């Protein structure tokens, strides 16, 4: 299923006065800070609508609370809030925001950060490794932007259509299962292919290169279990080899 049933049924004709919310919501993270996170971004996105409210002060105050949402899922939430504000149902917008935001973000975080994005990056890097960087980069970029555009716009349209019912429509707001499955397959294929192709090629180049690769696999696995940043692991291995180099061995170092 390319998109959930709700997306297909949703009225995709979003009211013109909600469009600025979509574009302004694109920069939600720009003023992110630890105290209120994306609150300034929400004010920026909703401001054109809130300023038209008769009770402007109350409407603005409602949206000064801390807000944090996955940027892929935020358009759905912003659209629902904007619709409720434009219908003078601001209190419902706040209640809906507090209920829906964490759940929606949880769904988005898994899809974006551990499925879609790594899969597209794998396509790009695989293109580089097989000697077709332009094809790899363009394919990855095209797929990612297509999924992002479809997902955010349909989420926005669905949010605008659902309004206060967004909480009940949550299962339908889930990202496409087909895309998640495809990302899974790409990740699995790449894991096997990189491991075997890298191992064989390293062995052909020099046994010491294969030793380095397998050492990095072992150290990297241990470090990743302890949530150590990969960059620091790389620097640690290089520093360790630098120290070993001080004690020259007849066999030499890889």
């Amino acid at each position, binding site marked *: 299923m390319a998109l959930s049933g709700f997306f297909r049924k949703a009225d995709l004709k979003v009211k013109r006065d909600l469009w600025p919310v979509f574009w302004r919501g694109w920069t939600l*993270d720009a003023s992110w800070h630890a*105290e209120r996170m994306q609150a300034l971004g929400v004010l920026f996105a909703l401001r054109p609508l809130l300023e038209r409210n008769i009770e402007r002060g109350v409407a603005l*105050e409602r949206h000064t609370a801390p807000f944090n949402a996955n940027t892929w899922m935020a358009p759905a939430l912003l659209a629902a809030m904007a619709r409720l504000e434009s219908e003078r149902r601001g209190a419902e917008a706040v209640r809906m925001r507090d209920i829906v935001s964490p759940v929606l973000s949880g769904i988005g975080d898994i899809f974006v950060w551990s499925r879609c994005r790594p899969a597209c990056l794998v396509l790009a*890097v695989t293109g580089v490794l097989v000697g077709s960087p332009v094809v790899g980069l363009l394919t990855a970029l095209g797929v990612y932007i297509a999924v992002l555009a479809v997902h955010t716009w349909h989420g926005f349209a669905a949010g605008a259509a659902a309004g206060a019912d967004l909480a009940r429509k949550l299962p339908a707001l889930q990202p496409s299962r087909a895309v998640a499955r495809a990302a899974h*397959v790409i990740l699995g294929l790449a894991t096997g292919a990189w491991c075997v192709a*890298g191992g*064989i090629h390293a062995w052909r180049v020099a046994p010491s290169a294969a030793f380095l690769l397998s050492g990095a696999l072992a150290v990297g696995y241990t470090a990743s279990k302890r949530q150590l940043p990969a960059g620091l692991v*790389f620097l640690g291995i290089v520093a360790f080899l630098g120290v070993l180099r001080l004690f020259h061995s007849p066999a030499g170092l890889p």
Partner: protein
Amino acid sequence: MDGARRAARRTMVSEVPAFGWTVLAGAVLALDDAAGVSLLISEPVFAGAVFGLLSGRFAAGVAAGALLQCLSMVTLRVGGARAPEGWLGAAAAVAALPPEVSFDGLDWLSAASLTGPVAAGIVAAFLGRALRDFQRRIVALCAGGAIERAAAGDASAATRLHVAAIGAHAVRGAASVAVVFAMAPRFAALVTAAVPDVRGGWIALGIGIVALGRVAPSRRRWTWVAGAALGALWVLS
């Protein structure tokens, strides 16, 4: 400052290729990374391609970016967690790339001269993250007053602060890429001098495989086996 040192410094600055385009790329990539919905172009492999293209060494830039990408394949930017600035790392790696490396086939993974640039890239990425966090602390300092005014019915200060934050990301990106292009070659040279024979490409690939294995589905092991078969076929053919 004597004439030779002044000339050397001038040479370092003038080495920034296509200066205007490079800092513009830095601004755009910083915005993509920090300002909102990312279009993926701020990931190291894409940033490496951009800076490589601007330096006239596309293949080298892509290769350096791919190695850094292996080290940041999976980043969970959840809540307040923010990853190191991979795009700035790619800029540093491209700036520090040695001219003599060939990028045919997979042999470049064995080039020991890539270790220094990749190390410079990692350090630059972490420094970039520190700078971005500093900017966010400044926004937090200014946000209190803006939020109070918004709560009182005037959202103009909040809007101005948000727009200023967007501008600050762009300026930070432009400035940091200029600094990195000037400084990274020196740092990479130090690393290369300390570890002249370490083949960092294979280390980065190994760490990248581990990162992939952590997010690849354990329920679909057949994909791993199929991938292994494809990889073996590709190398042996």
